[in-house]
């Protein structure tokens, strides 16, 4: 848009990390959502192969302690990770952006109160905070999403507030007021578009962190309850069989790594694109 030549997607593709991020992420997302086309097994069906067998032609990633196909479980487990990561970050960004916007725009006592609440949340280590939340609301597939969302709210609130504060001092906000616009309109239709680029970068990185946190919670047995194929719980069980069937733990860990690296690269790529737009804009 800056030079009026290339679209956003083209620029993202041209940046090296952006391209790598797109490829890695779409690979995993596609695999997760096309799982029934890739594998014929059911992730919950036991005894489809011998227990704890290594990789073979029939079971490319081997089988687990109940004879379930690990590749199938990883593919379906990706759905859980992606849904948990994206869902939690959507909730967190919605709440956080609104909080930060209101705090930064109106300032004063409201700002202090809201930001002190955010400070209180951020002062606990993320995992500990999530464990506390889950301890309060119980263990089910939604509770971990909610817990991860709560942990992520302050990041978005603080980022939005900081950006709003720098936007608010710019002339156009005063000009908009002089044109008689309402606060809501100025906040969401004038300031928000200026803040979006930073938020997008934060969203990708936060999704990666949320997926990691979800796996950590599952590893501790606080995520999706057992039969569900979650990467974290697979890692947790897999580590017990490390000596007999090392592939059991390696493959879920590898998938997790690839997805996280992919998301971080995508975040880097987005930042490059937005930065170049800002510097080339003048």
């Amino acid at each position, binding site marked *: 848009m800056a030079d009026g030549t290339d679209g956003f997607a083209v620029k993202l593709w041209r940046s090296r990390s952006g391209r790598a991020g797109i490829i890695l992420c779409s690979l995993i997302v596609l695999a997760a959502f096309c799982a029934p086309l890739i594998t014929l097994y059911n992730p919950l069906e036991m005894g489809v192969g011998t227990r704890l067998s290594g990789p073979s032609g029939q079971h490319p990633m081997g089988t687990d302690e109940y004879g379930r196909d690990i590749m199938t479980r990883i593919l379906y487990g990706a759905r859980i990770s992606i849904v948990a990561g994206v869902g939690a970050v959507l909730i967190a960004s919605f709440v956080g952006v609104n909080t930060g916007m209101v705090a930064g725009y109106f300032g004063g006592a409201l700002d202090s109160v809201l930001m002190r609440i955010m400070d209180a949340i951020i002062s606990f280590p993320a995992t500990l905070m999530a464990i506390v939340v889950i301890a309060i609301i119980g263990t089910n597939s939604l509770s971990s999403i909610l817990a991860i969302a709560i942990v992520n709210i302050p990041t978005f609130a603080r980022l939005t507030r900081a950006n709003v504060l720098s936007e608010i001092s710019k*002339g*156009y906000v005063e*000009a908009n*007021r*002089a*044109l*008689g616009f309402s606060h809501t309109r100025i906040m969401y239709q*004038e300031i928000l578009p*200026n803040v979006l680029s930073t938020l997008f970068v934060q969203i990708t990185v936060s999704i990666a962190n949320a997926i990691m946190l979800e796996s950590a919670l599952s590893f501790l047995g606080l995520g999706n309850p057992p039969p569900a194929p979650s990467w974290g719980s697979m890692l947790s069980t897999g580590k017990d069989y490390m000596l007999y069937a090392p592939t059991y733990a390696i493959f879920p860990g590898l998938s997790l790594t690839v997805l996280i690296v992919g998301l971080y690269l995508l975040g880097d790529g987005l930042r490059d694109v937005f930065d170049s737009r800002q510097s080339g804009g003048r």
Partner: protein
Amino acid sequence: MGNSAAILRVCNLTVQFQMAKDTVHAVNGIDFELNNGETLGIVGESGSGKSVTIKSIMRLLPTIPAGAIFYNDEDLLKLSEDRMRDIRGKEISMIFQNPMTAFNPVLPIGKQIAESIEFHEDVTAQERRFRVFELLSEVGISNPEYRALQYPHEFSGGMLQRAMIASSLICSPKIVLADEPTTGLDVTIQAQIIRLIKQIKETRQMSLIWITHDLSLLAGLADRIAVMYGGRIVEQANVDALYERPLHPYTQGILASIPTLSTDRSSLLFSIPGLPPNPMALPQGCAFCERCKEAMPICGDRVPALKESKNNHLVACWKYESECGGNE
């Protein structure tokens, strides 16, 4: 200055900002009127309170000032925020100093101009577009259909100021407040913008307040001029009277500082000695006293009132106190 024709009356406007320790006395009880269809120029150096004055009219300041500002019969300082929002942009609008920052960088120009019609009037999208195009060509932007889709960084400074003027005029306001609208522009562009505003003001029958630090700029533009110093109006007169016979020593000083073609090139330019007063610690008497060649003992003690010296020429200076009708 007939009361009947006044569209805006500012009475005893006082603005103070509370800082951690000190109070900034930005505007100290000023009175003026804006008549229907008139152009009032407000001149003053940085910190004299001129911008704060017009921001008070728009109520854009963090605090609500003391005093009263009557628009027709409504006191703007007592209105609800909702009613004030209706007035801003539709009845009274503002042209900002720096067009480069007064537009939102991420929205197309046309959309930003159309926004205020969207907010104030109930018209179809098509009619809105039509009015934006029409107004853009009126302010001298060619190919408006194309330019309206461009972003602020694709405009030059002069073009942006034209667009800014368009956005302040789109709802046909009765009063336009121009806050140094030509400061950031080249001299040639300045002249174009001044001509444009003047011409639009005439065709649309608006009233205009023009703020500037450049007294010479107002010569062909304003009907009446108010000179501000230290948050007070020190002199107010018709433009010709002010140029021909400035009364206040400060006004005389500014006029003497403007170089003319006949100025001897070997001599130094005239300047007023000293610095403007600190608004956090205004002197007890006349704010100009320290820099004034003609200061008298009384000048340091008490603030002179703005009084009529002769036919509509108002001045606040002890020097003319006897002419105005006697010392106390």
